[in-house]
Every structure is written in structure tokens, then in C-alpha cells.
């Protein structure tokens, strides 16, 4: 992060001291994860009620809360996240006018906001990643998107494409190349596009296509539009819900999501998959990428770790999204030949690389993907 080679003009800058703050919190997070978390795993194994217990993971999670060492780790885990947001919020606030001026200079693509839009309750009642204000806050100008973008880069610890944070989008593209090499989309839609990190690799790979990003927050979308424009991409950003996208039936050739499901709800996952089917023309392709963990295959500590994310980092559907039977849900959504597996994380996706299989190579090396043609 100190030598960002992969960056873009809309990214909030960091002053000398802000960079020191952000590097500190990144390193604190790495220390908590690398040095203290393995010890939590050992404690969890000691408290394991055993495989015969009918609620083994939840029971171990409850028992851990009686252990002060776990409580202090969990408290510091969340404190580090809250301090990260506080640092980044202050930095963005300091340069908000400059960011807005830079955003105003963009004329590529388009932005369509809906002043009457109401975000789903799961995003309003619990702000994902405990980001102050949440995804849907209508902050003035581009502030909320700027905070999300800079925060995402710090949170990802540089593992997902530096400040471009585009590893997931490139992996979606790699999957399209691997399984649907003949697809030449004219209209692309990302459900839950955030600040557009994943949409841009697709838009750049298919420059003839009209690329759309849909998400809930007006400030976030203003930023996404400006960010894309400054990267030379004419993308269209629309405010709305992935469960009820404001587009006509059959109006896209490629509909995808990138690590969206675990930030929704069990019910919303089903509705989003169905919505991706509705939005596709016959022959069009849906691709849904998620974190590579499958809940039932995780060891006890990793299961508990995902409950920590759910409860203390507001990843509301982490367990639902990593437990879902996507083959069945995709069929219920109307798809027939459904692919379910793992796509190798791709940094320079190109046709002919393959990289899709039934085994995960691990976090940040593989992503879970389900896909199908309508």
C-alpha cells in the first residue's frame, strides 16, 4: 500500500500522517490475524463439544465467549475495523471538496439515481463491515463511495489488486472465458456493483458492450461513476436493488455478482438468483462469484471465524451464502445446466486459460462461482 502501483485518479489521497494511520491499522489487522487468531483456534479446539453435538459450531462459539482471551481478541478485532473507518472517514472529509470537483469533471457514461429508493432492511439495519453510514447513505457528493473505496483497499491488505481492488471482477471475466468462450455480450450488468471495482474489468474486456452497475447508495454510485470515468470507462450506474432491478426482462447478455450474496440475506440470495435469470435474454449468461469457503467443509475455528464476521463485522449472510446449495437454487431460479465450482483467482484473464474446477485453492487464490446460460 505504501507504493501503490495499481491506482486511479478518484482514490482519496493519504497525507503523510494518514498513510501512517492506514499502514498502522493494516499491520494491526495482520498481527491480530496472523499472531493471535491461531491461538483462538487452539482455544476453540479445547472447547469443542465434539462431533456428536447437534449444534457444535454454535456451542463452541458460545463457550468461547466465556473465555476472556477470546473476548479481548474479538473486541480488538472490531476496534481495528472501527478505527480504520474513523481514520478513513476523516481523511475523506478533509479532501471532500477536491474529490467532488474531480468527480464533476467526468462526462463518460451515465448515472441514474432514484430519490424514492429504499434500500433493503438488511443493509439499513446493519451496516456491512460496520462502515459508518452503510452502503446506502446519501452523503453529500462522493464521500461515501470514497470511504468505501479507500477502506476496501486497506481492508483487503493489498491482496486483491492493490488500490484497484479488481481481483474479483477479473476472476468473473476468467470464468466467462473458461466456460462461455463464445459470449460476446452487448449489455452487461453487475448486481451490487459498489464503487465499480469488479465491473470495470468486464467493461474493459468487452468495450463494445454497454456496461451497467446497480447498487443501493447514491453517494457510492456518484463515486463509482466518477471512478470509472477517470479510468476511461463509459459505464452506466443505476440506483436500485439487486432483488428487483429496474430493468426489463431479457435485457442483458451477461449478469453477474461478485461477493454480493454474503452481504444480503438467505431469502435475498434466492431472489437475486431469480432476478439474474429474469434479466437475461435467452442464451445470456449469469455468473455469481462468492468467497471460496464452503461452510460445511470448514474446520471448527473457520466456522466460528465466519460467525465472528457475521456478528461483529456485519456480514449478515456469511453463513447462508457459504452454506447455500447453489446448484439447486439456480435451478429453482430457472436455469438448467448449472456450473458450480471454483475459479482460480485471475490477474491477467485471457481466453483459453481455463482455471475452473471442483477444488478450492484457498482464500484469495480461488473464488466460488456458480454460473449458467439462460
Amino acid at each position, binding site marked *: 500500500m505504501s507504493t501503490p502501483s495499481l491506482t486511479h485518479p478518484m482514490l482519496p489521497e493519504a497525507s*503523510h500522517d494518514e498513510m*501512517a494511520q492506514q499502514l498502522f491499522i493494516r499491520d494491526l489487522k495482520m498481527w491480530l490475524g496472523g499472531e493471535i487468531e491461531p491461538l483462538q483456534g487452539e482455544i476453540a479446539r479445547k472447547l469443542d463439544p465434539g462431533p456428536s453435538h447437534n449444534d457444535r459450531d454454535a456451542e463452541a462459539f*458460545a463457550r468461547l465467549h466465556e473465555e476472556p482471551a477470546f473476548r479481548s481478541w474479538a473486541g480488538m478485532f472490531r476496534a481495528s475495523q472501527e478505527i480504520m473507518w*474513523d481514520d478513513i472517514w476523516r481523511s475523506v472529509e478533509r479532501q471532500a471538496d477536491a474529490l467532488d470537483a474531480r468527480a464533476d469533471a467526468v462526462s463518460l457514461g451515465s448515472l441514474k439515481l432514484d430519490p424514492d429508493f429504499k434500500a433493503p432492511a438488511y443493509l439499513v439495519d446493519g*451496516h456491512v463491515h*460496520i462502515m459508518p453510514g452503510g452502503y446506502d447513505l446519501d452523503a453529500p457528493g462522493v464521500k461515501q463511495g470514497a470511504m468505501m473505496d479507500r477502506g476496501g483497499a486497506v481492508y483487503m491488505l493489498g491482496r486483491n489488486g492493490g488500490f484497484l481492488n479488481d481481483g474479483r471482477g477479473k476472476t468473473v471475466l476468467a470464468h466467462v472465458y473458461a466456460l462461455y468462450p463464445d459470449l460476446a455480450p452487448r449489455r452487461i450488468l453487475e448486481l451490487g456493483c459498489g464503487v465499480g471495482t469488479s465491473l470495470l474489468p468486464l467493461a474493459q474486456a468487452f468495450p463494445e458492450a454497454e456496461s451497467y452497475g446497480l447498487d443501493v447508495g447514491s453517494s457510492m454510485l456518484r463515486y463509482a461513476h466518477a471512478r470509472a470515468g477517470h479510468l476511461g470507462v463509459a459505464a452506466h450506474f443505476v440506483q436500485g436493488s439487486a432483488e428487483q432491478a429496474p430493468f426489463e426482462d431479457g435485457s442483458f447478455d451477461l449478469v453477474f455478482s461478485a461477493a454480493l450474496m454474503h452481504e444480503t440475506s438467505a431469502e435475498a440470495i434466492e431472489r437475486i438468483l431469480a432476478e439474474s435469470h429474469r434479466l437475461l435474454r435467452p442464451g445470456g449468461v449469469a455468473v455469481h462469484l462468492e468467497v471460496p469457503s464452503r461452510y460445511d467443509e470448514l474446520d471448527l475455528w473457520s466456522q466460528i471465524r465466519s460467525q465472528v464476521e457475521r456478528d461483529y463485522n456485519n456480514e449478515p449472510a456469511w453463513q447462508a451464502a457459504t452454506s447455500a446449495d447453489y446448484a439447486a437454487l439456480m435451478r429453482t431460479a430457472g436455469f438448467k445446466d448449472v456450473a458450480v465450482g471454483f475459479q482460480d483467482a485471475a490477474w491477467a484473464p485471457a481466453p483459453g486459460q481455463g482455471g475452473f474446477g471442483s477444488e478450492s485453492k484457498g482464500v484469495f487464490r480461488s473464488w466460488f462461482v456458480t454460473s449458467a446460460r439462460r
Partner: protein
Amino acid sequence: MPMECCRVNLPPPTAGRREITGLSVIEDQALSMIAALASELAVARERIDTLERLLDANGTLPRAQVEAYRAEGEAAQQREGLRHSLIAKVFRPLRDASRRALEG
């Protein structure tokens, strides 16, 4: 004494922040304050390190001159601003907890 000189907009509140079972609210705040203090210390040390390296490289500042320095006037005011923002950062959990208590 209110810190009118350096009041900044507050970040928006965070919805859905759960209590960590068994961790007292005050322990929760204390952990966060300690982490914030460590962050402030890291930032200050990096800045001092930058200064000392540059000054040393330029051969411009004997250490004794640093030891003898006292801030006055505008410099003293700017230092006050630094102290106030340090306080606002380190003790943020107290403010957040009060806001949450008021919202609840």
C-alpha cells in the same frame, strides 16, 4: 471547555453494532482507546522519523536546538489543535457509546 476551534463534522453512526457477549461495554471502549492510542503513537513516531532523517540528511539541526525549543503564538495554537484532534480520536468510543445510548 468546548473545543470550538477544531470541531469537525462527526462521521455518520453505524447501524447494527452488536455487543460482544461477555465483553463489558467499558472493556470494549477501553480496547478501542488503546488501539487508537497505539495508532497515534505510530503516526507520531513515523513523523519524527521523517523529520530526523531529513534534518540529518541536510545537516541542518543540532539535537540541542530541539531540546531547547518552546512553542509560542501560532505554533502553540496549532499544537492545541493537534492535541484536541488526538483527544477526539483516542476517546472516540466514549462519544460513540453516548450517541448509541441516546439513539437507543
